[in-house]
């Protein structure tokens, strides 16, 4: 179990590869982002994206899952106040295999909640050609070791 104290500046967590499946991309887009380039392979191919492209929100959500699997799932995470920025740099196409990493940029104890610390990450997602498809920075709240006793 990872606590706030384990997130030292410069520590890097690598993601396990995830394949972007056509059916999952269409299911996500049908519910949340039903634009033709996210739903229809033909339309995607003739658009500037070059193929059936994942909604940026889908790529972001997949990035979240990769973070969970890489480290957040076995941590004292208490959620996130937000994302400073997200750049969808290249289209994510059906069949792409995504991987990437989260890098600890800084870690500081909360001023208002003694049991909690805030960790800022740089997250990058890349495709099978090594191209960065998404880059973001976000903060996550973690309980400190023995945080229960302090709170």
């Amino acid at each position, binding site marked *: 179990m990872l606590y706030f104290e384990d997130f030292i500046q410069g520590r890097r967590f690598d993601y396990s590869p995830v394949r972007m499946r056509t059916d999952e991309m269409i299911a996500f887009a049908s519910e*949340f*982002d039903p634009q033709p380039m996210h739903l229809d392979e033909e339309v995607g191919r003739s658009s*500037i994206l070059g193929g059936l492209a994942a909604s940026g929100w889908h790529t972001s959500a*997949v990035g*979240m899952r990769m973070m969970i699997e890489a480290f957040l799932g076995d941590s004292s995470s208490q959620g996130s106040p937000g*994302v400073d*920025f997200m750049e969808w740099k290249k289209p994510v196409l059906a069949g792409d295999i995504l991987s990437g990493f989260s890098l600890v940029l800084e870690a500081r104890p909360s001023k208002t909640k003694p049991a909690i610390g805030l960790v800022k990450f740089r997250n990058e997602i890349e495709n099978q050609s090594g191209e960065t498809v998404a880059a973001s920075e976000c903060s996550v709240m973690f309980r400190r070791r023995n945080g229960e006793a302090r709170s």
Partner: protein
Amino acid sequence: MMTLEELYQTGRKVVTGSLTFTAEDIIRFARNFDPQPFHVDEEQARHSLFGRLCASGWHTSAGWMQCFLRFWKEEARRLAAEGLHAPKLGPSPGFKELRWLKPVYAGDTITYAVTLLEARIVASRPGWRINTILCEGENQHGEPVIRFESKVIEFA
């Protein structure tokens, strides 16, 4: 064809629609993308900072997109009825300053809105414009739960 700027004055907030987050939807989304205890299990959520089952922030964010597109489809229909063409919107290069201001709990209804902040012509691409929009959502108590700024490409 109308531009976004002609259609919506900069600075004017437009409500796009509402979405209710049921426990079932929250858990289904979270199991796929964000299976942290406070998003998938009511009992464990009670022992977290949130205190109750609440939606993944990515679910709340995707909900903004869902409501915007529903609104946009209606707008295109409304304009067509007046003999006008809605601008073509392209992919977004991303967003910034996304804040999940308050948890979205099971049963909450979020009302989303959009405000055009700035419209810029792209000098290198004739007919292209890049719009900066403010995206917001508030719960049934009028409390802001999400806000972010996004870019939207527009083609003439």
